[in-house]
């Protein structure tokens, strides 16, 4: 019994004799498990309903106010209107006349120049200039 290997049976018998037999059951806390009591819901009264929806109503009103304010303020910062696109006219002689009203030049020495493009359906585009003499405006009384 002096060799370490010979100790195995003795150690096994010793340690296993120390273990409780039968093995005890799982310990249970003294306090019983607390049951969660869910209170019954009373019937909803008008006051409760109004309280319940008060926050939602306040949120909706504030959103409405925000949108309204943004809408009204947007008018104060209007950008100038974009230049109108050239209009097209289909003339009786089967031509498309492109008139650009912005293409008006004041010219010099009291003359005004209007330029326009005329696109016949079959021919090449015509670039036309109309030159008018500008009458001096009479001062109002």
């Amino acid at each position: 019994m002096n060799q370490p290997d010979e100790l195995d049976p003795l150690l096994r018998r010793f340690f296993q004799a120390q273990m409780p037999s039968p093995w005890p059951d799982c310990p249970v806390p003294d306090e019983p498990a607390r049951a969660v009591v869910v209170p019954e819901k009373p019937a909803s009264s008008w006051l409760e309903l109004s309280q319940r929806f008060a926050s939602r109503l306040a949120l909706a009103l504030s959103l409405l106010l925000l949108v309204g304010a943004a809408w009204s303020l947007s008018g104060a910062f209007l950008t100038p209107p974009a230049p109108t696109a050239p209009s097209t006219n289909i003339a009786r002689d089967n031509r498309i006349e492109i008139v650009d009203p912005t293409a008006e030049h004041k010219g010099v020495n009291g003359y005004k120049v209007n330029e326009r493009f005329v696109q016949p359906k079959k021919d090449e585009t015509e670039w036309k200039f109309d030159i008018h003499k500008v009458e001096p405006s009479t001062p109002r009384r």
Partner: protein
Amino acid sequence: LYQRHSKEVWALAYARWMNADTALDVMQEAFLRLWKQWEAGEQILNPRAWLLRVARNLAEDHAKSAFQRNGTQLPQVMNGVESRQPAPLERMEREEVFGQLREVLDELSPADREILTLRYALDYDTDAIAGLLSIASTAVHMRLSRARQRLAERLKAKGVAQVP
């Protein structure tokens, strides 16, 4: 959880003080604390490690309080195996051998006793002990071998004979 780990918890507590009743108290207290933690909503990711740590701490606290009360270590208890009902003479001889063995085990370090308890009380192999104690299998093998060697030398010195 209790069935899987309660014996491990008991074994660690037993290895600390070599007292089966104290180890049982410590094991049950550790599980009660675990239930309470869970009841309180505490999240314990590794219950096994938690239980073993708590059992070690409880065993230490128990030893300190026992020492303060008694001024000495816990009295040793001569335990027999009631279920096998050996003959009285046989039983006396075995209890004598067990008593000597207990004295020698008391002289070993707690770490040696832990490994021996896990090996022989729970029949854990080297890998299982290594997993439980979070050490390498080679370290377990070495510690187990040395603990048995020391035990054999001391038993020889005491003249302990083979258990009947």
